[in-house]
Structures are given as C-alpha cells and as structure tokens.
C-alpha cells in the first residue's frame, strides 16, 4: 500500500541515476589511472582524503566551490525557462569590473588616484555592499542584454552569450591596459587596488571568504524563487512549452528579461567576490575559467539551485585533489580535467536514461 501511495519511483530514479553515473565515471577513470600505472583505489582514497578528509583540507574544497555556486546559477536559472545561457565568464568579468570601479570611486573618488592618495574614511560594510550591488547590477545588465536580444530581435541566446564572453574579456583588457591602469603595474596591467581595509574577509578563523555565504544564500534564494513563487512557476511553464505559456497570457518577454538579469547578477556577484575577496584589483587573473566550470556544474545539477551548490562542492573537491594526483601519483596535470570531463560526460549522458529504466517505471498492473 505504502509503496503505491507514495510516488517513490521518480524519487529513487532521481537518486539512482546521478549516483550510478558517478560510480560509472569512477570506474572509467579508474581504468585510466590503472593504465597510468597507479592503483585506482589508492588514488581515490588519497583524493577523498585531500578533498574531504578533515576540516582543514575541506576548507580548500569549500573555497574553491564558492565562485562555482554563483556562476552555476547563471546557466541554471535561465535553463528552467528553456534558455541556454553560457555567458557566465563574461558576466563574472563585468561584475568584477563593476565592483572595482565602485570600490575605487567610493574609496578615492577617482578611478586612477594619485599614488599618495589615502582612502576615504568610510564603513567597510558600506563599501562592500556597494561593490556587491555593483557586481550584481553590472553582471545582470550584461546577461540582460542577451535576454533583450533574444526577446526583441530573436537572437539565439546561446551564441550571443558565448560571444559576449569575448567582448567582456576584450573590454577588461582594454580598461586595465588603458583608462583603469595603475601605472605601477607595468608587466601585468591591472587596475588600482581596493584598499586593504575594504576587502571582504574570511569567515571566522577559516581561510574561506564570505563569498561562500553569498553563494549558499544565492542558491537558496534561487531555489525558492523557482520552486515556490508564481514567478518561478511562470518561468517553468514557459520553459516547458513556450507557446502554451504565450497562449495562456504569461508575460514571456518580461520573464525572459528578468531571469536573464538574475542569472547575470549571480555571475556578476562571483566577479565581485573574486575582486573584493581575492585579487583586490581587476586584471587578467579574473579570467580563470570559473564561468565555464559553472556551466558544467549547472548541467550536472540538472539546473536545480540546491543541487548546484552540492555539485559545486563536489567539483571543488575534485579540483582540490588535483594537486595530490600530480604530486603524489605523478600523473599529468590534465588528469584532473580528464576526471571532470568524464564525470560530466557520463552525467549528461545519463539524462537520456530518465523514464527509460524499467525499474523506475510505474507498473501498469496495479
């Protein structure tokens, strides 16, 4: 009785397929590890120890996961509406630029302060909030452009957001090599640095910066927005069947613009965190691939914001353990990329299995 009343099959399917594909990826990677002359069990044990073994090493996993949670939302949110946005890297860069510009303007009243200028006496919290807001607005506006192109001109959002990445990177290079350049940054053109007291610090005595909290909050808010509000419902309806949504009078255009803005704002916030918690200035180090990794996280999480946070931690752990593979097992530096690639390929392949495995089909006889 119980089993027929609770709809346990889809739930079991939703747990079994991702876990099963992860195990398959581990087996495939194990074959590769064996070919390279290592014992896969020892490798996995060491990877697990490095990534999740104790609180100290787990911090390394969490701090790597923080930006990925935010950039993943840039793909995950629009995907619920059937839009495939891959402009995460560009939105991150633009958000970082927005944060630097705001931080410098508030600290010095000037983007290129004189070398002897002293920062204004303002509350660090005020400056940090302004920088976060700027990151959100800049990143949001950036992907908002993609949404507007889609809605008003019918431009394919995947292609336009991809191309916007190149524009964003070119813009960053232009600004830090020209108008924003600190003349002291000769061989690595960079903007001026945000003054030390205004930087975003670490949580307690850990080495994890507050970007992790931003990421977790953003994922929770995104989840509630998509799953528990009429806005989210409307977006999901439009994602399920755009024509039906239009016929039933849903404001598809407005939804497109808003969801693109929200998506970009998450990646923009990641850029702000990277600037205000790690780099202190804008330069080419911002282009570290967090945006592209975020796309993968969103795919594996099947666009669920809560799952995205967890997948980000898993990916953070894989990246964290990359050093062990190189230094303790003498494997090439591309190994960790190969592992990531295998995990993601298998997970994406497993998408096609939903509803096809007979174990999880509702039996018709009952």
């Amino acid at each position, binding site marked *: 009785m119980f089993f027929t009343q609770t709809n346990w099959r889809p739930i079991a399917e939703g747990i079994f397929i991702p876990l099963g594909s992860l195990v398959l990826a581990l087996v495939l990677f194990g074959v590769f590890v064996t070919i390279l002359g290592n014992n896969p069990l020892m490798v996995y044990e*060491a990877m697990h120890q490095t990534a999740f073994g104790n609180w100290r090493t787990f911090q390394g996993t969490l701090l790597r996961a923080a930006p990925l949670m935010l950039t993943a939302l840039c793909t995950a949110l629009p995907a619920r509406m059937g839009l495939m946005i891959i402009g995460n890297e560009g939105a991150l860069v633009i958000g970082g630029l927005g944060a630097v510009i705001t931080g410098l303007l508030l600290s010095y009243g000037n983007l290129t302060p004189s070398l002897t200028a002293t920062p204004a006496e303002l509350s660090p919290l005020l400056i940090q909030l302004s920088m976060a807001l700027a990151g959100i607005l800049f990143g949001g506006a950036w992907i908002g452009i993609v949404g507007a192109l889609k809605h008003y001109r019918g431009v394919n959002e995947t292609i336009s957001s991809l191309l916007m990445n190149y524009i964003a990177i070119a813009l960053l290079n232009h600004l830090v090599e020209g108008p924003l350049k600190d003349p002291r940054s000769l*061989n690595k053109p960079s903007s001026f640095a945000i003054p030390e007291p205004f930087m975003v610090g670490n949580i307690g005595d850990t080495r994890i910066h507050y970007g992790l909290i931003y990421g977790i909050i953003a994922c929770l808010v995104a989840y509630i927005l998509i799953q528990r509000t009429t806005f989210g419902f409307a977006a999901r309806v439009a994602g399920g069947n755009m024509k039906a949504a239009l016929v039933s009078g849903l404001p598809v255009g407005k939804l497109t613009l808003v969801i693109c803005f929200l998506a970009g704002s998450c990646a923009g916030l990641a850029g702000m965190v990277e600037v205000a918690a790690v780099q202190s200035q804008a330069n080419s180090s911002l282009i570290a691939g967090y945006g592209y990794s975020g796309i993968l996280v969103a795919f594996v999480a099947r666009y669920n914001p809560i799952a995205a946070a967890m997948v980000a*931690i898993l990916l953070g752990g894989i990246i964290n353990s990359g050093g062990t593979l190189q230094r303790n097992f003498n494997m090439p530096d591309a190994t960790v990329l190969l592992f990531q690639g295998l995990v993601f390929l298998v997970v994406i392949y497993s998408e096609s299995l939903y509803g096809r495995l007979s174990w999880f089909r509702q039996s018709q006889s009952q």
Partner: protein
Amino acid sequence: MEFRIRRRRFIQLGSGVMIATVAHACSPSSPEAGESPSTSGEKPITMGFIYVGPKDDYGYNQAHAEGKEGASKLSFVKTVDQASVPETNEVQEVMRSMIEKDGATVLFPTSFGYFDPHILKLAKEYPDVQFFHCGGLYQADKHPKNVGSYFGYIDEGQYIAGIVAGLTTKTGKLGFIAAKPIPQVLRNINSYTLGARSVKPDVKTQLIITGNWSEPVKEAEAANSMADQGVDVITCHVDSPKVVMETAEKRGIFCTGYHANQSALAPKGYLTGAEWNWSGIYSSYAEKIKAGQTLMNGGIPHLLRGGLKDGYLTISAYGSQVSDAAKKAADAAKEKFLAGTMVVYKGELKDNQGKVIIPAGKEQLQQDPELEKMDWLVEGVIGSTGV
C-alpha cells in the same frame, strides 16, 4: 571472492565522495595521504615549483620545469611540482599544501601573476618559508623579508637571434608574434629588431599582438598571414611558442625560438633561439640554502637579475640552415655580451614614429630602470603598442 571485496570497497569509496559533499566530513582528522620526505641521513631541502600552464608547453612553463629537473639532480634537494595552477586563490592553496603536506621550505611559484596578492599573502603567513618569484617585483620597503625575486635579461638572446635572422632573411621581412604590449615583451621585440638591423640596416620586423598569453588559434593565423606577406623568419613572445614554430615549419619559412628549445618542432627551419637557463639559477639557490644562507639572514639577495654573462639564459644550438657568416656575427655579439661590453640601447635611437628616444652619445645599459618602463617600438618595427 577477492574481486567482490575490492568491488565493494570501490563502491564505498565512490559513494563516499558524494556523501561527503552532502554532509561534510566531521570525522576526526586522519593523517593526510602522500609520502613524507625520506629522513634517511640528512634532511633534504624540499623545493616546490608551481607553473601556470602545462610542463610540456615548449615554452615558459617547460623552461621552469627543466630548471626544476636540474635542481632535483642535487643530492640534498627534494622537489615537488604542480602544473596548470591559475593565478587565483588556487595558487595560495597549492603553496599551502606544498608547505604543510610536502614539507617544502623553499617555493618557486613561477608565474608573473602569482606575486601580488598570492605570494605576498602566504609569505606573511609562513615567515620561515622562502618564496622566490620569477619577475623582479620585490620592493624592500613594502614586501616581507622571506620573499625574493629573480629575472633574466633574455632580450640579449633575442638580440643574437635577431642577428641570425637578419643574415638569413632573403625578403628582409621578419615577423614577431607577441602576447601583450608590456615592457618585457616590447624590449624583446626591440632587441630582436636592433640585432637584425645591426647586420642588415634595412630589415623590417612585422609585429602582431594577439592580446593574451595563450591564443593558439590567433598565433597560427598571425604566422600564416606573415608567411603570406613574405616574412621569412618568425619569432614570438607568447607562453607557448609551439604553434608559431610548427606553422612556420609547415609554411617552409625560418623561425627562432623563445623560452625553451623548440628545434624538435621545426627541424628544418629552426635557426636558433633565446632560452632560459633556470636549471643553473635554481641549483645555485639550492647551494646557497644548503650553505645556510637565506633571504631572512641576508645571505641571499632579494633581487637577483642577470643576462648571458650571469648564466640566466643560453642560445639554442644553430640549425643546419644558418650560414657561417651568420654564426660568426652571432658568436661575436655573444662574446661581447659575455665580456659585458655590449650595449644594445644607445643613441641615437628613434622609435618607429620618428621620435628620438635616446639622444646621440647616450647609453642605456642592461640594468637601466628606464628600460623596464619601455613603451615604444624601435625604428624598423611595423606595428604599434596599441594603447
């Protein structure tokens, strides 16, 4: 039976990874994986090397990895290294892990962008560990005592390569593919051109700037378009010269290398090249540390720089296509560099806009700080600094 046990263990481990993501590990801290340094006899000096790209890029990172290999041959040195580490808090984590897990007391994070803020931050946290950074950014009044920097005047090698290129080109057109219009790169372009024009005054260097350190597609396009325009000797300053050298070889033109030896990529057209010699530099650091000298006790200078004379670079062996006259001229210039009598930048020197940069009778020597701020292209370069 045994297979089953192993498979079960395997699945346990596999799901462990996933479960740990959900409920983070709060188990009592267990010893970290990995071997501890061998403690037989005297404790070795553990040196950690970090590269921004792959170790086999035929370029910047390979040059440092070869340097690490050289240092690891010393009996009292143990080395660890990690490649493809981005200039984010990732590199901070890698340094921390090398210190805490591998017991590294000397670190060589080699990418230029690792310095500020990453090395500076870790150096404050670990005052007993010595951090050596490639790039020459150390400032005594601002930076921690356990940070040092080193860099070489590799443009001397480019000057010599320019001589060989100038005496090899038939069209009088050389090509230079550069990543960014920054002083280090501009100095290489200018020295290369000055070298070529010192032996053939009407030689021109066509410059193409790709905009980023690693742009293989743009680099190949640039090399192809240069070959189309009649350029017959190409060189570059990008992280990995691999694509440029291969494209030149494919197009049947000559090339001169940079960072590391690329003759294997272009066996026919490779003339010579400016190579780093980090092996010698890293070994000499190791010897000093072994003798008890450190950055903190003043035994090792915080800023070390040098050129050919000081062993920072070498010139690739001449390829089969290099004429005897070219070899002779290049060797003569090399002798002058080794003797310390060569001056590359001397008046009257004009930039490619016709403006006099160094007036007649003036010289700017190797270590002149003015040269570190270079923002111009010498007469004979076709192109602009782009800012």
